[in-house]
């Protein structure tokens, strides 16, 4: 992270996650002319979710490119451009549509540096909203953290708040590797206090490092993306009952910061993971497996537990949708069960 400029003290701003990503992209577009953005509606429409608002007006057709609805084609074009020395940001309107293009992300982008024994880097960012939204039903609500997190050669980041979003998008753009940034549509409009250092044009959050959002002693709660907020809410409720949760914001899915998790579990002796994605073969499953294999296992006083999305395709009706994603009450319940309360 950059040093704070001591000369100008601005009051702590409230910045939405959307604007934070916008700022991050704007700063990187300005800093390096090889950076460009392509995707559906990113230019003249200002972005399907307005994340790229104002960028086309500022940088023009060459740097902000509207594509036809051709995910496999434009993802491949972005990867080719990265191979030839540019630094593309490839937006998927949602990551559900990235399935059309997933071959280009995995086989053309992620694996190439390895297959070429270091001759051909692929400095590309794939970004867009991931996971559940509200009322968009099964085909538009899948979480891809586990799918992309599975693959060597990729980096996968998952910001929660505005500071995460700005720091991670900037790091992703400056990274010489393929980085998948899993945003969250429901978080775009949420405001957060922007710490002073986040206002710097060189503010970066390192990829591969988790953040302890709340210190605690009784249980380690690990989450990524929007559920981090739910965990903090649960922690507030539980604090009134004398239960202090240590909430860890993963920030990066791959490479995962297992050290921070293990150190915390060795302190609290209890582990609950929380994610929006499906339970089987998910992020929580990976965390549990790694904790079992590592030094923290012997410090567990109870089995680790996962809180996840329900194991169903996302339904439409509100009551069903509400019960398909982890709610604060589900997190509280799981924590109490783990603590045998």
């Amino acid at each position, binding site marked *: 992270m950059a040093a704070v400029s001591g000369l100008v003290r601005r009051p702590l701003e409230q910045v939405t996650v959307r604007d934070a990503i916008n700022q991050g992209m704007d700063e990187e577009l300005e800093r390096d002319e090889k950076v460009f953005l392509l995707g559906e509606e990113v230019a003249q429409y200002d972005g399907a979710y307005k994340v790229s608002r104002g960028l086309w007006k500022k940088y023009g057709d060459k740097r902000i490119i509207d594509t036809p609805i051709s995910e496999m084609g434009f993802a491949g074009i972005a990867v*080719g451009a990265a191979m030839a020395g540019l630094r593309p940001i490839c937006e998927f309107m949602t990551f559900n549509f990235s399935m059309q293009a997933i071959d280009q992300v995995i086989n053309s982008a992620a694996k190439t540096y390895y297959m070429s*024994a270091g001759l051909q880097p692929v400095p590309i960012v794939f970004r867009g909203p991931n996971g559940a939204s509200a009322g968009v039903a099964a085909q538009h609500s899948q979480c891809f953290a586990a799918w992309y997190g599975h693959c060597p050669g990729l980096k996968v980041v998952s910001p929660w708040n505005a500071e995460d979003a700005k720091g991670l998008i900037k790091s992703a753009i400056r990274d010489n590797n393929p980085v998948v940034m899993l945003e969250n549509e429901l978080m775009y409009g949420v405001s957060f206090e922007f710490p002073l250092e986040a206002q710097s044009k060189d503010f970066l959050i390192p990829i591969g490092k988790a953040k302890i959002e709340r210190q605690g002693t009784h249980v380690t709660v690990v989450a990524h993306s929007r559920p981090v907020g739910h965990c903090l809410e649960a922690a507030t409720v539980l604090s009134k009952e004398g239960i202090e949760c240590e909430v860890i914001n993963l920030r990066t899915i791959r490479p995962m910061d297992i050290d921070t998790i293990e150190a915390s579990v060795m302190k609290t002796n209890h582990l609950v993971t929380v994610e929006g994605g499906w339970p089987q073969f998910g992020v929580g499953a990976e965390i549990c497996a790694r904790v079992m294999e590592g030094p923290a296992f012997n410090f567990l006083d109870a089995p680790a537990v996962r809180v996840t999305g329900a194991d169903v395709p996302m339904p439409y009706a509100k009551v069903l949708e509400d019960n398909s994603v982890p709610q604060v009450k589900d997190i509280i319940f799981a924590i109490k069960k783990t603590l045998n309360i």
Partner: protein
Amino acid sequence: MRKMLAAAVSRVLSGVPQKPTSRVLVASCNYSKDVTFEIKKCDLYRLEEGPPVATVLTREDGLKYYKAMQTIRRMELKADQLYKQKFIRGFCHLCDGQEACCVGLEAGINPTDHVITSYRAHGFCYTRGLSVRSILAELTGRRGGCAKGKGGSMHMYSKNFYGGNGIVGAQAPLGAGIALACKYKGNDEIALTVYGDGAANQGQIFEAYNMAALWKLPCIFICENNLYAMGTAIGRAAASTDYYKRGNFIPGLRVDGMDILCVREATKFAADYCRSGKGPIVMEMQTYRYHGHSMSDPGVSYRTREEIHSVRSKSDPVMLLKDRMVNNKLASIEELKEIDVEVRKEIDDAAQFATTDPEPPLEEIGHHIYSSGPPFEVRGANPWIKFKSIS
């Protein structure tokens, strides 16, 4: 269907060496300095004019092309041998018969231009600057391979050469992206995106066509039509086998891919077209592979030995060039035989290296996961096995 295939085969067979239209004799030696040859007119689509129907071949270029094609020919045959001896494993897709395509394409562009192709890439690896030694050692999976043994047959790279791609058709959008980078940088370079008759039916090809045309990307889409996609003849896979027309709104030309001069002139024409800012162009090269699809395919269950033999005796690209040069005194048979001997030695030395060089060290298994980062640990087959990963 059989008629269509027969017509396509006869098109490949009908390339015969043309009579020279002029001859220049240099007094001090027995060879011509250069000779003008008539070449087959290309079929055109959405183009008023095409490549020239006559071209000059200099003695120097002729010897260069001959050596290159012969090297590729012998290298592929050596790979066949090494595969049967189990030095090469997995997939091995050979391009013998198609040498005029890669050598002719290279002759029509600059080294600063960009090329990407499919897994039938060994010829392009050579024309784009990789040594036979580094190619064969990559095929045998040794540390002296151009990708240190980590890529294998389908994943070899060099400067301005982006492989070698295993997924059929994936290289088409990649190539369009490389062309986008050329246009973005404003460097007057172009991208050659090569794919086969099988890949020509992939959806992403058409997505790439659309965006390349829309954004006027300097991309030559090149269909190497060798009449068979694995075991499926073109007529069984494509509703239209006029691959040079499949770009619809993109102009195209169909080229005799067995005649290196035809390929060279068509490439120059297409390259000029792209460099002038008019956008992409499609080139279909009619060619033929002697081997089956890969080393697992004998190549005779879906075509006859007679057909293979017929192409080999009437349209072999190396033979066509050789006959042209000898008949027009650009070189002597003895001289070309000497080149053959040189080539054989180069291939044998390379094969010797490729079969004796050690495999990459196990300690390097984790390297090259990420570019430009600090070293980190990579997990092996169980939690106690850890490998170091260095960029």
